[in-house]
């Protein structure tokens, strides 16, 4: 009896040994740093730990117009990337799911950008967007449109579009800069394949009996899409939107390569929150300040994720 208990305890004890390597890494480089980040954020921490500031860093950040601008850039970026990716990838996956010939080839091609390193392909797109020699401006010429400054353009896209029609736009309605929209276009191109592949998998998981039953009831193609495909795809759409939101909020590589990082792009219009944190840390060596900004961003991302779970979660239809 006693020996049986002892064996069980010993077995339980060794169970923890299996967890130990992963636990040690996660504890040392993920959990504790989270707490340490908060500690650092309370100090005037340059290269070394300086005087205790309390919440002064937080107060400074919340009164820094650059920080608010970086949040605006982050939200514009997410608002540009996420809906575009969802709609395009759904349409393409829906079309791909229904073609029989060439599906594998299409899938291979559409997925290709996703496996390529952001730094390298962002550099390629910088070249495509080049204001002087870029192939895109050349193509615009065929459509009878004037060349654009693309990644060098600080003016908002709404301002540019309405300005061409002779309408003046107030500053708050200028929209994201064309430079940021260029990066959004790149990001959609780069991430689309991921969303398409996930959506294709979602589509192929819908049992065909559901379609058959709906067809028996006389459902046309549009109502099949509306009443079978989209509801059955809601978990996938939800998953893709959560993953893209996290990705959009942490976007760094493309912005770092495509626009001048030290100045946050043209007039700071592509400096998102991640870049703001990076610059304060890396360029200005304000470690405490950067930590505080990262914490604020963390709270915002957490709030958004909870919001997505609360508001969108219940609308998701699970089988």
């Amino acid at each position, binding site marked *: 009896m006693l020996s049986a208990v002892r064996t069980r305890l010993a077995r*339980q004890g060794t*169970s923890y040994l*299996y*967890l130990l*390597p*992963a*636990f040690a*890494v*996660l504890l040392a*480089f993920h959990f*504790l*740093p*989270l707490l340490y*980040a908060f500690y650092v954020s309370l100090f005037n921490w340059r290269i070394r730990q300086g005087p205790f500031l309390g919440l002064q860093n937080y107060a400074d950040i919340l009164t820094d117009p650059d920080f608010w601008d970086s949040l605006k850039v982050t939200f514009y970026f997410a608002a540009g990337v996420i809906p575009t990716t969802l709609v395009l990838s759904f349409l*393409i996956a829906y*079309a791909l799911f229904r*073609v*029989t010939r060439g599906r594998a080839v299409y899938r*291979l*091609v*559409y*997925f290709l950008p*996703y*496996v*390529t*390193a*952001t*730094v*390298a*392909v962002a*550099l*390629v797109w*910088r*070249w*495509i967007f080049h204001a*002087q*020699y870029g192939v895109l*401006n*050349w193509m615009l*010429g065929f459509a009878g449109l004037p060349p654009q400054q693309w990644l060098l353009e600080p003016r908002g896209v709404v301002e540019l579009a309405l300005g061409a029609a002779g309408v003046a736009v107030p500053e708050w309605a200028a929209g994201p800069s064309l430079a940021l929209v260029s990066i959004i276009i790149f990001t959609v*191109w780069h991430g689309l394949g991921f969303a398409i*592949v*996930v959506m294709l*998998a*979602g589509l192929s998981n819908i049992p065909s009996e559901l379609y058959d039953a709906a067809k028996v009831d006389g459902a046309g193609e549009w109502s099949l899409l509306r009443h079978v495909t989209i509801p059955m795809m809601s978990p*996938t759409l939800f998953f893709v939107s959560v993953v893209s939101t*996290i990705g959009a909020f*942490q976007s*760094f*590589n493309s912005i*770092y390569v495509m626009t001048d990082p030290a100045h946050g792009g043209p007039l700071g219009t592509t400096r998102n*929150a*991640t870049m703001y944190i*990076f610059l304060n*840390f*890396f360029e200005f060596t304000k470690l405490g300040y*950067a*930590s505080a900004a*990262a914490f604020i961003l963390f709270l915002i*991302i957490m709030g958004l994720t909870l919001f997505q779970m609360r508001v969108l979660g219940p609308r998701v239809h699970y089988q």
Partner: protein
Amino acid sequence: MATQPAAPSRPTLRITPRRVLVHVLLSAGALLMLFPFYWMVSTSFKSLEEASQFPPTLWPSHWLPQNYVEAWNNAPFGRYLVNTLFVAVAQTISVIITGALAAYAFARMEFPGKNAIFLAFLGTMMIPLEVILVPNFIILKQLGWYNSYFALIVPWSANVFSIFLLRQFFLSIPRELYDAAEMDGCSRFGFLWRIALPMSKPALVTVSLLVFLGAWNSLLWPLIVTGSEDMRVLQVGLSAFQSDARVQYHLWMAAATFTLLPVVGLYLFAQRYFIESVAGSGVKG
């Protein structure tokens, strides 16, 4: 009742205007996806003069393969490549080791606090990279690991998503198999090593590909924890090369091409695994 002759089971593919339209749109989209790669390769063979011509030439008038030699020699790209490969492979192997052990414990063992620990593990997925950047930088400096392979590998040698994925896979292995192996005197570790892992090849491939790609493509982390040229990985090296004051798009495109080549080659060779890994990560994860 007489049976009807069976309808032809093979669907006849008629060419309808609608089908044609779908294919035209899909092909146009595919061309848009591919065009940047074409533009990269075609520029990489042009001379600087030709690359900075407007309107541009779609096809190089003189092919200059020596651009690749010049780009390669512009920076120690060989060293960057070795660093990147080493870091990516080491990270992949260690993620699999730490992941398989932890996943096995979560899937097959009973111990106090199991659910709480599992939830805490999942919680680390919520922590954004930005938050742990500064503290990890300070910690690594204090450990004396700044600008070393340790700094590039160790913090990422365990990965919750991989633990989760492997755990799901281990859970699908029938309990009876485990009991039978135990009856035959197989130890718990023996079961993991000889039965569970070989049965989980699809999950291991998924984890390896995702971790390898993540390591290969990362920029922000290596940028911060390494300082010297000999510790640079490819992405850092490429971004340093392209921020050079001299504008030389033909060489940058050559460097971009050889940076992409290994992963694109691997993708074309094993595309099924890549696509299934990602599709699986979405649907089952």
